């Protein structure tokens, strides 16, 4: 008996600690948000102000994170870059989640041939290495922030679709859905008013973590020079010049990467926290 109480005390501690991590995640997400909103106020310099006399200067009191190859202040560029990351993350995952909800709902609600057809489409998308697909599309469209958002959105709807489908399959058998059918509610009313609100929690978790994933993809594309185009500052393109100057300017690589890590970590921890809060059964 005493053994089991110590275990539960340990477990409680563990869960507290996890919530603490989730809280930390939320705090990280919030602070990146604030930085993005108030970028013009916090940034010490104009992010595109070129200063030929101070090219690739290391961190100092004037430039806490140093300057880049055109003498621009790295901290200011990072602060403005947070806007790009968040825009891409939210819009891309918004698109992906909408498509996912729509296809998943139809698939799970109607079943049969429609379901098989949509699930085959998911299989097709999952067979193609996402980054290859994104690159191939970017090769044809011009790289721009809008295109990046749309392309990431169009290549990340598969997980939400599967999650929504699973929710619909289990929820559509419940009594309140049968009751809605009996009352003569239309299919679209049952789908969007009755079933969907009851099946949203896994979507919320996957969307939160998805934003982190989209931030990673955007920064990778910008790092490769195929994402957000200069002179717009983005974390990925800062890292790209970090790579070109790796032997002389470590600060160009170190700080922007840290910003990406912290942002993505924030969304992942927050997503995990939401999962815990919404569905205690999934706690490990």
């Amino acid at each position, binding site marked *: 008996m005493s053994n089991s109480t110590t275990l539960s005390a*340990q*477990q409680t501690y*563990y869960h507290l*600690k996890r919530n603490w*991590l989730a809280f930390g995640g939320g705090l990280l997400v919030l602070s990146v948000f604030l930085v993005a909103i108030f970028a013009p106020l916090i940034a010490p310099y104009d992010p595109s102000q070129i200063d030929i006399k101070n090219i690739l200067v290391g961190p100092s009191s004037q430039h806490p994170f140093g300057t880049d190859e055109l003498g621009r202040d790295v901290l200011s560029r990072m602060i403005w870059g947070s806007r790009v990351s968040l825009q891409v993350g939210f819009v891309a995952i918004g698109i992906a989640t909408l498509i996912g909800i729509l296809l998943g709902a139809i698939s799970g609600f109607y079943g049969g041939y429609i379901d098989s057809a949509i699930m*085959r*489409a998911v*299989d*097709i998308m*999952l*067979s*193609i*290495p*996402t*980054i*290859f*697909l994104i*690159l*191939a*599309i*970017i*090769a*044809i*469209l011009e790289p721009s922030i809008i295109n990046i958002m749309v392309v990431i959105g169009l290549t990340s709807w598969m997980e939400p679709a599967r999650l929504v489908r699973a929710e619909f399959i289990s929820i559509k058998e419940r009594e309140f859905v049968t009751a809605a059918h009996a009352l003569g509610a239309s299919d679209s009313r049952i789908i969007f008013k009755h079933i969907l609100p009851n099946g949203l929690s896994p979507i919320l978790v996957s969307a939160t973590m998805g934003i*982190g994933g989209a931030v*990673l993809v955007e*920064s*990778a594309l910008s*790092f*490769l*020079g*195929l994402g957000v185009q200069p002179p717009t500052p983005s974390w990925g393109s800062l*890292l790209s010049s*970090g*790579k070109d100057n*790796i*032997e002389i300017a*470590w600060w160009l*690589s*170190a700080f922007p*990467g*840290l910003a*990406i*890590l912290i942002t*993505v*970590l924030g969304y*992942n*921890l927050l997503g*995990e926290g939401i999962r815990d809060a919404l569905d205690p059964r999934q706690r*490990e």
Partner: protein
Amino acid sequence: MFLYSIKRTLLMIPILLGITLLSFSIMHLAPGGPAEAQMEFSAKASAEARERLRKLYGADQPVHKQYLTWLTKFVTLDFGDAFADGRKVKDKILERLPITLAINLLSLGLVLLIALPIGIMSATHQYSVLDRFTTIFVFVGYSMPSFWLALLLIYLLGVQWGVLPISGIQSLDVTGLTAWGRLMDKAEHLIMPVFVSAFGGLAGFSRYMRNNMLEVMRQDYVRTARAKGLSENVVIYKHALRNALMPVITILGLSLPGIIGGSVIMETVFGIPGMGQLLYQAVFSRDYNLAMGILVPAAVLTMLGNFLADIGYALADPRVRLR
């Protein structure tokens, strides 16, 4: 088992058609289609030459016929010529495939070698220091941009301490070395790329293994095994582990696209002349033939990988076959 394999094989046909149809449509997203795009390479092409090229690409045919022609060519592994140097896409891919495969296989091996024991340990010692440490490591691993990790390693190991080469797959003076020396030289060049491509997988796999193990250890047959007095080692490594390992086969298949996709970034950072770098160059020079010649085979290979994983899973677990 036979029936299951047949069913699973038939399932690949619509996926295969879908992959090719999708790729073909992407190519035709370009204004004027691929024929027009190649002409950008020779701006001075006369109207007559343009017409000839268009015929060559079958662009004067209706779209569905173009798709069929393109598909028949792809089936016979004829991916056309690269725009930039006019060489066969197939040849360009074949000379770059081995190094990409080698790095991916090595990193996959490294992932399994490290992640599985870690996952098992954190499950058998749940809530221990090790378990907590891996939980944090998993979150950081998921969130780490691989190219940043690569840059940090390049800076520390390559620039600061100078213990490892920072780019390419061999040194310039490699011809003067013995066979053993050449092998060591290659190994030195591969350490960082292999580690970087393994890093993301480490987090995912160790997490997955831990959760599988925990799930299995709650099962009745594990309790039975304990109840009849078997030693803890036998219970864990014989009864629990074998069942927890099976789903890993499936995850191995599912993780293929991510691993292959990661090679674009990894090869670009480390300057490795593989498939990923080739795709990157193709995208930059808008070489559709080359880009599609990489995209479609990569997707088909991924699909085959998933197929093999499913078959392997069915071989290992009879319940799957009967579903």
